[in-house]
C-alpha cells in the first residue's frame, strides 16, 4: 500500500506501477492526503488501508517523506499485535520501490521478499547514473532523483514541455532531465529548447535530478505535473464554440491597434535563421533533435489546423494537412537521415534536404505542384527554427509584418521603426501581441485567416487598424485614400497633443480624468510627457519578478519615489503585487495550478503572503506622506478581502508612525464578474473602483484572452461586459469613483459609451492620453447616456460597435 502527502501523487504512482502487471492485478491500497486536495497524512486512514490491503499474507507499506513515515509508524501502533506483525514499513523510494514491489508481488512473492526487491529498486538507477551522481549524503537531503513516464499522445512536446519548464523554474533548485528511454544526455529543465531536444515521445521515461535548497520540492512539483499529464487533457476534445460570423478572406479582420499603415508585406516566416557551423553531436543525438523538432512542428500545425477549421472553415484548413504530410514524407526524411548519418548536424541536414526537394518542385510544369515548393520551404523553416531553438525571426526588412500570430516574446521585439503595421492570420485584440502593438503605436489587424499568409513577400498592402480594413495590392486611388486618412489622423494627433495637458471635460461640462498606465520609471516619464492627469495604474510587478528575493520596504519606497518624481506631483495609483500561478515568483514557489487564471493570484496571493503585502503597504504609506497616493487592490472577489487589506493598511500606517497620510485613497480593481455585481456592498470600504476590462472580459465570457481560437469571443464591447460595467457604476452610485484601466479605455470609440454608463476616470497607455482626452471633449454626455443604455440591450459586440459608430 502507498502512503503519501498527495492523493494525486499516490494514485499516479499506483497507476504507473499497475502498468507493469497487466492482467495480474496486485491489491494496492492508498492512504494519501487529508482529502482530494489537502496534502497531509492520516494515521487512522493508514490503519484502515492496511487492514483493507491485508488478505492474510501481510502488507508492504511504501511512503513518501516526512509525516508519511511518522504517520505510518503511528498506524502500526494502532493495529493489533497479529496484524502489526504482518506489516513491513519499507524504506524504498516511493516510485521505484512501488514498481519493483508490485512486479515482485504479482509473481507471488511474500512480503519480506517484496520489500527487499523494493529497497533494491534504487540500485538500477544508481548503477545507471554511475559516477555522474553520487548518492546524496545521509541527512542533507539536498539532492533528489525521480523519474516519470510520459503518457500524453504527442510526448513531451512544446506545450507540456513549457509547463514543465515553468514549473522547474519556480524553484530555487538546479533541475536536470534526460530521456531515460533514448539514453540522452542531461539537459537543464529550465530551458525549453533543451527540454525539447530530449525528444520525449509517448511512453518514454524521463529521469529527473535536482540539487539546491528546493531540490525536493522541485522534483515533487515536476512529478505532480507529470502525474497530471502536464494539464494536456483539459480543454481538449469537443469544445462547443458558437460559430463565429463568417470572415472574409483578406479584406477585413479584427481591429487590434488603431492607425493607418502602408508598406510591403514582410512575412515573419521569410527570414531564414542562421545555421551555426557547429559539428554534429553524433548521429543518434542529431536524429533525436530532428524527431523532437518535427514532433513539435507537427503538433503546432495540428493546433493551427483545428483553429482554422473552426474559425474560417474546413476548406482553409487543408493547407495544414499538406504541411503535416510533408513532415512524414519518406523521401525528405530519408534524405535528412542519410545526411545526419554522414556526420552533418540536424539543422544543416534538414535545411539542405528541404531545399533539394523544394528545388525539384520549382522546375515542374504543373503550376499546382510548383506551388508546393512554397509549402516545403514554409514547413522547412518552421522545423529549422524549432531545431535551432529560435523563435520566429525578428523583422528582416521594414514593412508590414505578416505572421500567423505573435507570441509575447516575438511581439516584444516589434520595432515601430521597422514594422509599419502588423497583420495576423490568428490572434485576438486582447492577446499580448496586440496589446504590445497598441502600446508601441503600431497599427494592427488580427484574425485575417490563413489567406494573408499566402500573399507574396513584398506585395504592397494598406491597413487601417481602427476599422480592420486591409487592402492587398491597393489601386492608386485606394492608396491615396489611406494616405489621406493617415495624414488626417496624424494632424488630429498633433492637435490632441497640443492640448493634452489641459483637463478634459465633455461638451456639456462633465469633467473626466485621464490617467496613464505605468509599469516602470520610464513609463512614468512618458506618462508625464503625455499630459496624463495622474498615473491611474502603477504596476509594481517589475520590482518583484526575475529576482531571487522580494524587495524590502526600503527598496520599494525608493523606486516608488522615483516614479512619483517622474510624475511631477501627479497622483500615483499604486497597485499591490498582481502575480499568481501563471507567473510565480522564484522566492515564493507556488503549487502548480490546473488553471492559474482562476487560481491564487492578485490579492489572493498577497493575503497568502501577508509579510510581503505588509512590506509593500508600508512602502506605499511612506510615499503617501509626500505625494498623493491611491492604493489599488487587484483581483478582489469578496468584501472580506478588502476588509483584510484595509486592516493591514491601518497597520502599515501605524508602522510608518506618521499618522494617516492626507491624500491616501483606497480602491479595488473590478475584474471578477461577481465583484462587479457586489459593488454596492463594497462601496462603504473603498474610494474608487477601477475596472480591469481585460480580465473582466475573459472571466465574463469564459474566453482566455491569449487563445486565438476565441478571439471573436473575448471582446470588451460584448453587451454582457457592458452590463457588468453598468452594474459597477450603479452600485457605486456616486459614492465612489468608477474608473476603467483596461484596454477598453484606450478605444476612442468606446469613450462616449463608458462616459455614458457613468465612468469618470480612464487610464490608458501614455501615448493614447491625448487622443482619449480629445474623445472626451468630443462627447456630449446627454446624448451618450441613452446610446449607452441601448448598447446594454444589443445582441453582440458587433451591434454595439455599429451603435457607437453612428
Amino acid at each position, binding site marked *: 500500500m502507498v502512503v503519501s502527502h498527495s492523493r494525486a501523487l499516490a494514485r499516479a504512482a499506483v497507476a504507473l506501477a499497475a502498468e507493469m502487471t497487466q492482467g495480474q492485478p496486485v491489491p494496492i491500497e492508498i492512504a494519501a492526503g487529508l482529502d482530494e486536495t489537502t496534502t497531509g497524512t492520516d*494515521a487512522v486512514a493508514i490503519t484502515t488501508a492496511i487492514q483493507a490491503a491485508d488478505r492474510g499474507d501481510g502488507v508492504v507499506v511504501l511512503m513518501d517523506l516526512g509525516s508519511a513515515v511518522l504517520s505510518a509508524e503511528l498506524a502500526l501502533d494502532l493495529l493489533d499485535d497479529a496484524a502489526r506483525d504482518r506489516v513491513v514499513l519499507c524504506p524504498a523510494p516511493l516510485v521505484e520501490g512501488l514498481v519493483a514491489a508490485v512486479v515482485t508481488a504479482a509473481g507471488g512473492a511474500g512480503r519480506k521478499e517484496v520489500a527487499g526487491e523494493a529497497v533494491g529498486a534504487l540500485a538500477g538507477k544508481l548503477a545507471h547514473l554511475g559516477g555522474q551522481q553520487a548518492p546524496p549524503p545521509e541527512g542533507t537531503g539536498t539532492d533528489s532523483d525521480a523519474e516519470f513516464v510520459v503518457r500524453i499522445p504527442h510526448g513531451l512536446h512544446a506545450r507540456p514541455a513549457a509547463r514543465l519548464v515553468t514549473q522547474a523554474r519556480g524553484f530555487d533548485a538546479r533541475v536536470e532531465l534526460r530521456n531515460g528511454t533514448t539514453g540522452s544526455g542531461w539537459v537543464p529543465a529550465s530551458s525549453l529548447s533543451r527540454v525539447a531536444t530530449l525528444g520525449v515521445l509517448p511512453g518514454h521515461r524521463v529521469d529527473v535530478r535536482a540539487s539546491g535548497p528546493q531540490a525536493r520540492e522541485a522534483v515533487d512539483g515536476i512529478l505532480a505535473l507529470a502525474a497530471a499529464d502536464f494539464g494536456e487533457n483539459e480543454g481538449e476534445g469537443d469544445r462547443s464554440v458558437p460559430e463565429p460570423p463568417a470572415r472574409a478572406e483578406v479584406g477585413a479582420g479584427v481591429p487590434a491597434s488603431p492607425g493607418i499603415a502602408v508598406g510591403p508585406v514582410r512575412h515573419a516566416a521569410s527570414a531564414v535563421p542562421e545555421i551555426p557551423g557547429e559539428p554534429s553531436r553524433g548521429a543518434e543525438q542529431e536524429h533525436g533533435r530532428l524527431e523532437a523538432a518535427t514532433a513539435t512542428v507537427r503538433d503546432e500545425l495540428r493546433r493551427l489546423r483545428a483553429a482554422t477549421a473552426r474559425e474560417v472553415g474546413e476548406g482553409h484548413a487543408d493547407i495544414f494537412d499538406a504541411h503535416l504530410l510533408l513532415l512524414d514524407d519518406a523521401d525528405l526524411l530519408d534524405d535528412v537521415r542519410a545526411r545526419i548519418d554522414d556526420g552533418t548536424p540536424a539543422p544543416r541536414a534538414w535545411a539542405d534536404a528541404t531545399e533539394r526537394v523544394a528545388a525539384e518542385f520549382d522546375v515542374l510544369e504543373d503550376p499546382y505542384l510548383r506551388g508546393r515548393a512554397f509549402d516545403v520551404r514554409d514547413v522547412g523553416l518552421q522545423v529549422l527554427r524549432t531545431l535551432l531553438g529560435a523563435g520566429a525571426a525578428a523583422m528582416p526588412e521594414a514593412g508590414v509584418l505578416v505572421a500567423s500570430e505573435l507570441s509575447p516574446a516575438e511581439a516584444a521585439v516589434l520595432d515601430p521603426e521597422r514594422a509599419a503595421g502588423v497583420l495576423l492570420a490568428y490572434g485576438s485584440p486582447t492577446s499580448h501581441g496586440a496589446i504590445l502593438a497598441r502600446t508601441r503605436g503600431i497599427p494592427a489587424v488580427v484574425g485575417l485567416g490563413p489567406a494573408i499568409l499566402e500573399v507574396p513577400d513584398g506585395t504592397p498592402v494598406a491597413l487601417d487598424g481602427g476599422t480592420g480594413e486591409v487592402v492587398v495590392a491597393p489601386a492608386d486611388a485606394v492608396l491615396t485614400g489611406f494616405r489621406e486618412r493617415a495624414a488626417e489622423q496624424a494632424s488630429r494627433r498633433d492637435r490632441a497633443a497640443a492640448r493634452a495637458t489641459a483637463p478634459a471635460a465633455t461638451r456639456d461640462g462633465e469633467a473626466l480624468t485621464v490617467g496613464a498606465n505605468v509599469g516602470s520609471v520610464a513609463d512614468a516619464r512618458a506618462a508625464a510627457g503625455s499630459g496624463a492627469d495622474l498615473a491611474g495604474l502603477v504596476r509594481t510587478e517589475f520590482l518583484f519578478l526575475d529576482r531571487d528575493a522580494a524587495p524590502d520596504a526600503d527598496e520599494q519606497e525608493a523606486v516608488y519615489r522615483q516614479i512619483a518624481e517622474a510624475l511631477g506631483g501627479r497622483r500615483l495609483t499604486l497597485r499591490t503585487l498582481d502575480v499568481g500561478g501563471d507567473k510565480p515568483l522564484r522566492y515564493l514557489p507556488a503549487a502548480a495550478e490546473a488553471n492559474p487564471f482562476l487560481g491564487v493570484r492578485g490579492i489572493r496571493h498577497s493575503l497568502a503572503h501577508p509579510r510581503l503585502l505588509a512590506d509593500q503597504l508600508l512602502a506605499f504609506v511612506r510615499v503617501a506622506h509626500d505625494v498623493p497616493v491611491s492604493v489599488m487592490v487587484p483581483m478582489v472577489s469578496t468584501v472580506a478581502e478588502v476588509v483584510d487589506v484595509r486592516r493591514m493598511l491601518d497597520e502599515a500606517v501605524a508602522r510608518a508612525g506618521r499618522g494617516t497620510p492626507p491624500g491616501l485613497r483606497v480602491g479595488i480593481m473590478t475584474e471578477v464578474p461577481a465583484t462587479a455585481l457586489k459593488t454596492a456592498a463594497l462601496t462603504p470600504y473603498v474610494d474608487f473602483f477601477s475596472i480591469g476590462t481585460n480580465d473582466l472580459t475573459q472571466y465574463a465570457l469564459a474566453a482566455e484572452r491569449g487563445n486565438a481560437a476565441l478571439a471573436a469571443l473575448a471582446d470588451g464591447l460584448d453587451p454582457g461586459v457592458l452590463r457588468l460595467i453598468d452594474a459597477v457604476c450603479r452600485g457605486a452610485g456616486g459614492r465612489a469613483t468608477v474608473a476603467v484601466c483596461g484596454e477598453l479605455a484606450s478605444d476612442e470609440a468606446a469613450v462616449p459609451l463608458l462616459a455614458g454608463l457613468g465612468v469618470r476616470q480612464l487610464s490608458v497607455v501614455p501615448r493614447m492620453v491625448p487622443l482619449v482626452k480629445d474623445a472626451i471633449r468630443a462627447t456630449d454626455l446627454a446624448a451618450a447616456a441613452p446610446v449607452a443604455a441601448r448598447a446594454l440591450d444589443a445582441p453582440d459586440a458587433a451591434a454595439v460597435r455599429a451603435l457607437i459608430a453612428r
Partner: protein
Amino acid sequence: MTHSVDAAAVTAWLREFARLVAENKGLLTELDSAIGDADHGTNMDRGMTAVLAALDGEAGKSPAALLKRTGMTLVSTVGGASGPLYGTAFLRMAAAAGDADGLDAGSFAKVLRAGLDGVVARGKAEVGDKTMVDALTPAVDALDAALAGGQPLGEALPAAVRAAEQGREATIPLVARKGRASYLGERSAGHQDPGATSVTMLVAAAAKALGA
C-alpha cells in the same frame, strides 16, 4: 494532595490549548513559513478545532479517554508531521493516565513525560535538533524538579512554562536536523522553531488551566 487533575481540568487544558493555537495560528504559520512549509498554524488549528468538537461528545469520560480522543482526532486532522507527533504524545499520555478519574501532581508529571517520550520515540529527535522536543524536555524536567522540591502543581507548572520558553528561545540559533526545516541546513538558523513554539503553548495552557 491539594490538586486532582480530573476530566474537567483536562478539558479546560485542551480548550485553553486550542484557544492559544487559534490565537497564534498566524504566528505559528509565519514561523513555519521561514523554515518549513508554512502550514503549522493552519494544521494545528484545524486539528484542535476538531478536538474541541470531539470533546463535546466526551463529557464525563475519564482523563485517559479524553486524551485518547484528542490524540486520535489530531492524527486524522492535522496532516503534517505534527499530526503523528502530537497524536502520539496524547495517545501515550492517555495510556499513562490509566483509568483513574483524577491525577495527582506526580501522576500528571508522569503523564506529561510519557507524552514527551512518545514524541521522542516517534520523531527520533533529541534536544538540539530544533524541534518541539527542545521545549517539551526542559518543561517536563522542570516540572519534575519543582514537584520534587515540594512545590505544589500551581507553582511547578509556571516553572515548567518558563523552562519551555527558554527551550523555545534556544531553538532560534540552532540548525535544524529533523523535519522539513533540515533541508535548509544552515539557513534554518536564526528562526524560532514552530513546533517548539506550539508545544510551549501546550505547557502554558496546562499552567493556566491546572495551576490555579
